[in-house]
Structures are given as C-alpha cells and as structure tokens.
C-alpha cells in the first residue's frame, strides 16, 4: 500500500466527475470513514431536469450525510455536498456556497470548473482536488487553478475510467500529484482521516 505522506493542513476536498464516474463516487463515499474531518464538495454532471433522486442514489451505501446545499448555506466539516441540478455551485470566502444559473460552461451546468476554481480561490493550498471519469474537458481548468494555488491534485487512472477525456484534460493542463484507481483514492482518504485524529 502506498504511503501518501499526508499531513493535516487540508480544509476541504472537491470532487468532479461526469460520464462513468457514478460507481466510483459510490465506492469512494461508501468507504469513507465515519467522522470524516473535512467537507467534501462534489460537482457531478447530471440531468438538468431531474431535480430529485441523485442524492438518494448516492446515499444508499454511504453513512455520511449528502446534501444539495441551498444558496448561502455554510460549509461544514464532515458533510458531503453535491451541486444541485441546473445550478452552478461556487464556494465563497467566509466558507459558504453560492448558487447561480449563469450560462453553461463546457456545455455543463453545474460546471466542474466553477466549483473547483472557486474552491481553489477560497481554500488555496488547503484544498485537495479529485477528478474522475468523464467525457468532456470540464474540470481540467479547475484542476489547474487548484495546482496553481498550491493545492493537491488527484485524477482517476485513465485506464480505469469508462471515458478518460476528463482526467486526461487535467493531466495535459497541469501537474497532477497522484494518478490513482478508485480503490487507491479510497485508501488515500483513509490515510488522510488518520492525520486528524
């Protein structure tokens, strides 16, 4: 097992994913240790006009609480947040969310670049960004923002992805600290958890 040589400087985790990422997300969330010390902020591409059901589907195997935040909802430790359908989700200074119905970016709303980019601005080197399987480039620029601001970057191993366009976009745009399979991402989060005990 890899030792990721982690410390407890991190304040938040952001995860982006699209086509082919659902199973991976479920696996990551279901392996998440109880009392996980950081907020997990997720932006996943999803059907625009299906407002309900996604949180429920993700929650089936997970013990942590997953919520689609309201506009201006404070970001709390140990909670998992999911960008609501048809809204962009930004992190604001002061650690709360803002939602918006601005134009689509990369054909997407929610756009991963927005969630990752604004989180990088707020959490700087205290942020971990994880980008999973997906069929477009959304999230690539977001990962670059995270790296440029000193955060830690992880993408899913392209060979494991159902569609590898998304992680490859990130790999071509910036330095990625770890290229990992889903099981190793789960292990990474367990090791991270131990740093906060």
């Amino acid at each position, binding site marked *: 097992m890899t030792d990721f040589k982690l410390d407890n400087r991190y304040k938040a985790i952001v995860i982006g994913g699209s086509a082919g990422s659902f199973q991976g997300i479920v696996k990551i969330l279901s392996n998440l240790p109880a009392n996980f010390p950081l907020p997990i902020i997720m932006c996943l591409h999803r059907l625009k006009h299906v407002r309900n059901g996604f949180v429920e589907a993700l929650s089936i195997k997970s013990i942590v609480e997953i919520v689609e935040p309201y506009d201006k909802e404070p970001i709390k430790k140990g909670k998992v947040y999911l960008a609501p359908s048809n809204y962009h989700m930004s992190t604001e200074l002061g650690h709360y969310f803002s939602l918006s*119905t601005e134009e689509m970016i990369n054909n997407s709303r929610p756009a991963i670049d927005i969630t990752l980019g604004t989180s990088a601005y707020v959490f700087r080197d205290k942020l971990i960004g994880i980008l999973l399987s997906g069929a477009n480039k959304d999230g690539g620029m977001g990962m670059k923002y995270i790296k440029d601001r000193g955060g830690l970057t992880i993408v899913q191993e392209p060979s494991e992805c159902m569609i590898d366009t998304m992680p490859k976009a990130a790999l071509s745009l910036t330095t990625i600290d770890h290229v990992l399979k889903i099981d190793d991402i789960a292990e990474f989060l367990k090791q991270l958890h131990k740093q906060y005990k």
Partner: protein
Amino acid sequence: MTEIDIADLKKITEVVKSKYGYDFTNYAMSSFKRRISRILEMNNMSMETLMKKLYDPGFLDDFLNEITVNVTEMFRDPSFWRVLRDDVIPGILLNHQTIRIWHAGCSSGEEVFSMAIMLREMGLLDKVNIIATDLDTNILEKAKKGEYNLKNMELNEKNYIRYQGTSSLKDYFKESNGKAVLDKSLVENVSFRKHDLVKGDVFNKFDLVLCRNVMIYFNQTLQNEVLKNFHESLFKYGYLAIGSKESLIWCEIANKFIIVNNEEKIYKKIKD
C-alpha cells in the same frame, strides 16, 4: 477565465455607484467576478479599458446587461407552476377578487409569459394585475417583445408538457425569422418597469411576489434588505416564491413568513 483582483472589483463598484447610482457592493462575489471577466473576454478588453469605458454613459446599458444574469426558461421547475395553479392562486382567490402579482427581476420575461399562459388557461387573466420589473432596460425591451430563440423553445415546450397545461405551448407563439414570437395579447395588461431591487423602493402591494433565482446573485446582507422590501410589498397572507434552492432559513425576516410548500419554496406572510 481571467482572474480578477478584489481591488479592481472594488474600483468598478465604486465608479458605477458614484457615477450612476447602481450599487453592486453586495452582489455575491464569485458570480460578480465571473460577470466582470466575461465582459473583459467578450469585448476583448483589458481591465484598464473597462475602467475608462465605465465613465462613458453610453456603455452603462451594455454593462448592466452583461452584469445581470439573464438565463431563464418558461415554466422552469414545472412542479412549481403546478403548485401555483392548484394551490396558491386558488388560495389568493379565497380572499381577493383580483390578484396582484409582482415579478421581481423578470429578465427576458419567460416567467411573465408562463404566468400569463397559466392564468389564461385558468380563465383568470383579466382578473390579474401583473407588474414585471428589472434593472436592465435592454432586457425589459426584450421581455415586452416576447421573442425568443427557437432553440430555447424546445426546452420550454418540454417544461410546459411537464407542467401539464391544457393546451400546447405552440398555441401561444408563431415562428418568424427564426424566432418564436409569443402572443402579445398575453401581456397586454402587464406593466413592465425599470426597478433596482438594491434601492429598495416599495411601490405597491401584492398578493404574490415571484423572485426566483435572482437573490442568489446577492450576498446575505443584501438578501436581508430585499426580503424586508418584499415583506413590506406583500398584503398580509400574501405569497412569496423564491428559487427551489434558495431558503429564508438564514434571513432575519424568516419569522414573519411560514413555508407553505417546502419543495417549491413558496412562503406566506403571516405577520406585518
């Protein structure tokens, strides 16, 4: 996307405020930043050029048009419109013979036309007084015209079908020059007016205020101010509809409202 300095944002808001009286100080930071960087990119402009342009009154309308977000749909959240039709409007009619409605931040008017279509199908359109306001005069002109891109109509029609209207959305528009031109008679009694929510003028009393996905562009301070204004603008037992992902939980005025539909975020004023 161009990264924008907070110091530059401050300069922009100061100029626009002192020169034209529009105050963007309490807009939500992340989206306001994106709007500014969008203006720079779309016009291929540097920050210095934008600063200079802001002193040209001819540029102000374009600036306001780009700063405000004008992405909207007809019958967005079809279930919301069903609740309006089945519960809210009948609820108002129990106490009032005519209905007064304010669309606050009406943008290009999709929700105004949705409302008018809903009311016509209910046989109530002539009993309703609608005022639709926005800060952006360009977009108000667009709303009055009721001409939308045909490619947007596909989504609008899907929403209308999910709303379960009594007709077909096609009955309310004609195609002309690649545009969908809405039936003007729908909005002949609608008053479109320029109004800045930030300034907080109370100009009338209403049975229903719709302000969906507008306050998300404001910070908490400004949201509180605007909600006070809505509270004052509503008759007692009047309704306030906000976006499905907005909430009054963190707002000072929450105790003067009760929630009548949590899923669709429809509130009722219960205290003066």
